[in-house]
């Protein structure tokens, strides 16, 4: 590093290159802004990065596999390295997958990394999505990015399903058979769709090449485009941050892109790739040579799809055998309902939730500081209920394995699941909400009384008291990050003239008022209600300062303006602190 007049300049070669580029693209200001961009830090912010890097690894390893894979269903007789299948009739797709595994150096490793990366991709997407949901990071202005994420999740599932179907082995072929059965169940057009997709009867000779082009071109292209949009929007809107000292709605606190974030994220890419390489070295995945080539007559017991499809497997298994005969036509509810409704409910519910929440809370403001899950008890409870629902279906999807390993009768498990799928989420909702409100009460206790130090002091009159220490500034800032929800008028609430509030009139009004009651249940951080009676009276009460209320409730005026670092930016915190002090 040389120096002129105390100002550091890069080495000559770099200056030359920079000048060359800047003469053509004028990037000095833009790239500098990019370098200085602040990225907030929290371990959960890495979940999305895992998904991103898994996808890059999928592109790299997938390209390698495509150099050797033959997406063809032409019958061949195998005479290769894997002697146990010598002389067996199989499709060229299966034979070429055997060749990749046993006759291409590093082929098995790349296959296994590709498969592990697909599983990690989906797992990271799920975890990332849950983080976004539970911290409320999907709220305005990020609701559109949330929708893009849901589309990415759906595309990821399809991409994975089509991908693991390509080797045309017995396991994945059975998966395709199930797919055919589900498509046949679609009313009116199902039979036609199936014949068009498979090029005639199942299995036909077309499905593998068709899935191949969808898997390597169409869906990856869509995913790539949507990831680009996802990242650009994130970049443009700036990342959310976790609550903490000095973190407000109007600033972003963290480390700059260059060099910190670049170095960390680069390291993280290597870490993800390294872990996938390790898994693929020591943990075998999808050993298609053990399954054998697909034929429609054979099957192996304990067939399981990849985990991200297990949910649908569970819904199919749990379903009763309902079908309708509708004027000479068959409506296969036993297939249609489990294939479409539960997943549709989850995805549609997730997509609509930000808008339902806005409508029910009247909170149209912009949010950049994440919620602590406990501070949004209803949202957290709904999220946990959804997780419970998903998990029960996932477990039911492996009911035969559970029955086998735990020695529980198979039908018993299915019957338990049939009830648990309704009771489990309800119980999860109730418990989660109570736990959240309990944690809120604990937070208030911490604010009001501080931490127990374990030091006991004897008072002059003989009384023993434990010394409490006020919580640290940082902790205090986290506790005070809670925003009291705004209450809408209660259902049927009337003013002094006995006229119901306009917002609560009509069916939609009543529904909204009820949803608002449920969603705004909260234990105020500061308040004179005494202990133990916090919940349920957060709305409309006298506690919580009005400025806060206005800030949360005011539509279309998220934050005042860009003047950020001025002391005024922490006015909210100060306001709450003073309110707290007064209590």
């Amino acid at each position, binding site marked *: 590093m040389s120096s002129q007049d105390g100002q550091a300049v890069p080495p000559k070669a770099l200056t030359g290159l920079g000048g060359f580029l800047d003469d053509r693209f004028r990037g000095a200001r833009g790239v500098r802004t990019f370098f200085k961009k602040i990225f907030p830090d929290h371990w959960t912010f890495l979940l999305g990065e895992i998904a991103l890097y898994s996808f890059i690894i999928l592109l790299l390893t997938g390209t390698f596999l495509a150099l050797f894979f033959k997406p063809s269903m032409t019958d061949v007789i195998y005479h290769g390295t894997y002697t146990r299948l010598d002389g067996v009739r199989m499709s060229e797709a299966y034979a070429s997958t055997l060749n990749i595994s046993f006759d291409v150096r590093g082929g098995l490793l790349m296959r296994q990394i590709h498969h592990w990366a697909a599983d990690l991709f989906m797992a990271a997407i799920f975890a990332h999505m849950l983080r976004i949901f539970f911290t409320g990071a999907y709220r305005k202005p990020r609701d559109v990015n949330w929708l893009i994420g849901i589309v990415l999740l759906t595309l990821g599932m399809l991409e994975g399903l089509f991908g693991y179907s390509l080797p045309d082995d017995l396991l994945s072929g059975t998966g395709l058979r199930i797919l055919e059965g589900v498509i046949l169940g679609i009313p009116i057009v199902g039979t036609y769709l199936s014949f068009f997709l498979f090029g005639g009867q199942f299995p036909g000779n077309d499905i593998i090449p068709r899935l191949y082009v969808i898997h390597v071109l169409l869906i990856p292209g869509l995913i790539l485009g949507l990831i680009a949009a996802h990242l650009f929007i994130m970049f443009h809107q700036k990342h959310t941050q976790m609550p903490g000292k000095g973190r407000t709605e109007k600033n972003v606190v963290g480390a700059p892109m260059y060099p910190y974030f670049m170095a960390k994220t680069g390291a993280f890419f290597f870490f993800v790739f390294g872990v996938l390489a390790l898994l693929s070295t020591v943990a075998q995945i999808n050993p298609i040579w053990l399954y054998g080539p697909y034929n429609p007559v054979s099957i192996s017991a304990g067939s399981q799809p990849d985990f991200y499809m297990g949910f649908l497997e569970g819904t199919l*298994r749990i379903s009763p055998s309902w079908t309708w005969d509708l004027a000479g036509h068959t409506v296969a509810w036993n297939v249609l309902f489990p294939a479409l409704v539960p997943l549709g409910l989850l995805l549609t519910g997730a997509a609509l939730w930000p808008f339902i929440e806005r409508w029910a809370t009247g909170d149209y403001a912009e949010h950049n500081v994440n919620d602590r899950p406990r501070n949004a008890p209803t949202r957290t409870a709904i999220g946990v209920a959804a997780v419970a629902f998903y998990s029960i279906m996932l477990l039911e999807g492996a009911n035969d394995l559970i029955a086998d390993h735990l020695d529980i009768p198979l039908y018993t498990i299915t019957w338990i699941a049939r009830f648990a799928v309704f009771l489990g989420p309800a119980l999860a909702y109730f418990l989660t909400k109570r736990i959240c409100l309990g944690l809120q009460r604990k937070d208030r206790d911490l604010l009001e009384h501080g931490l127990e130090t374990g030091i006991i002091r004897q008072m002059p009159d003989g009384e023993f008291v434990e010394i409490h220490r006020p919580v640290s500034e940082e902790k205090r800032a986290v506790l005070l990050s809670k925003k009291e929800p705004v209450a809408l008028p209660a259902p049927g609430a009337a003013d002094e003239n006995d006229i119901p509030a306009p917002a609560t009139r009509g069916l939609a009004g009543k529904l909204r008022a009820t949803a608002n009651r449920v969603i705004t249940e909260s234990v105020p951080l500061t308040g004179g209600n005494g202990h133990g009676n916090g919940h349920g009276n957060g709305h409309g009460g006298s506690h919580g300062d009005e400025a806060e209320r206005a800030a949360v409730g005011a539509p279309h005026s998220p934050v005042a303006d860009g003047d950020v670092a001025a002391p005024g930016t922490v006015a909210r915190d100060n306001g709450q602190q003073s309110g707290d002090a007064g209590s």
Partner: protein
Amino acid sequence: MSENDQTSADQPGEDERASGGATEAAGRAGEPAGTAAAGSPGSAEEAEGQEHSRPHRVIGTPSPTAARTLLDPAAGNGGPGQGAIESGDPARAKRAERIVAFFFLLSALASIGFIAAYIGMPVHSMSRVFHSNLALGSAMTVGFLSMAFGAVIWVRRLMPDVEMSEPRKPVASTPEDRQAFQQTFMEGGEDSGFIKRPLVRRTLIAATVPLALAPVVLLRDMGPLPGTTLRHTVWRKGMRLLVFGSNRPMKPEEFDSPGGLITMVPDGYQDNDDELAKAAVILIKFEPGQLQPPTVMDWTVQNIVAYSKICTHVGCPVALYEQTTHHILCPCHQSTFNAPRGATVIFGPAPRPLPQLPLTTDAEGYLVAAGDFTEPVGPSFWERG
């Protein structure tokens, strides 16, 4: 670079801006303990918006924050300098540097090892494949993880620990910008005549519909129309049943494993997956008197009954047979069929019994079909009725 050369971070923001806003690092050693944690409310407030301590810091330890002036000081960054690089101890920094270098070198060695393993370890046999996989995978793992560890230690030990703040403006445009945009938009609309020439507008919109429909038509040739394909299989009167795998015909008396289940395929179609996907059947032999209605007794031969192997749920092969209970179980979704009673459904999502194939024997005594199934096999479909 040495952090001691760069203590200009301590200077107020305006100076920093003049010097181009270069990254500056200040040693932490010798700096007073931070004001962030235990200071008076006043001092904490002062620090607000200028620097921020890391969460969960133990009171009394040195502040991990560093005054950073990379950002525009006008935006409220910069301020009194705090320590930065790990303890400011040159010896420790040197040690960290060596550790990072060690990992990077290790990564380089591993990558070279990867190339060596690729060249030196052939495949083409199962054991060699697994050895090759172990060697290549281990080298790759070490190569990547070493890079990761090296870079992480570099960031954590050698780069200053920074936390900075940047202003965040509301995402929405200002009302003036919106208004200006609306005006431009409407002016463009006026100029184009899109508004005042409805004929152009309406025909344009009308033209997009067939334009979008045309490519959909292209998909028509992806497959033949179903017709009645799904209603029939290749079974014909007199067609022999071949044992799946060995492809040999079978006489009833050769079925010497009562309680067992044998998969049979139609003679002449044993390699035709499209037909096998509908026509595969299972044979089960019972003790006399075990078979009950609704099994069609006329379609059985010496207490041997043939059912479709294709599950009526979504088409998996029903391959599991429980001898003691005579239950046929589909391994996919556990639909369970009662074998001696016409394969009626006793559990699971399957809506119908497995169709029964009419059996008889031919002149040579081999098992043959007496005709096709009398109903469509396999999963429900709309036209099934």
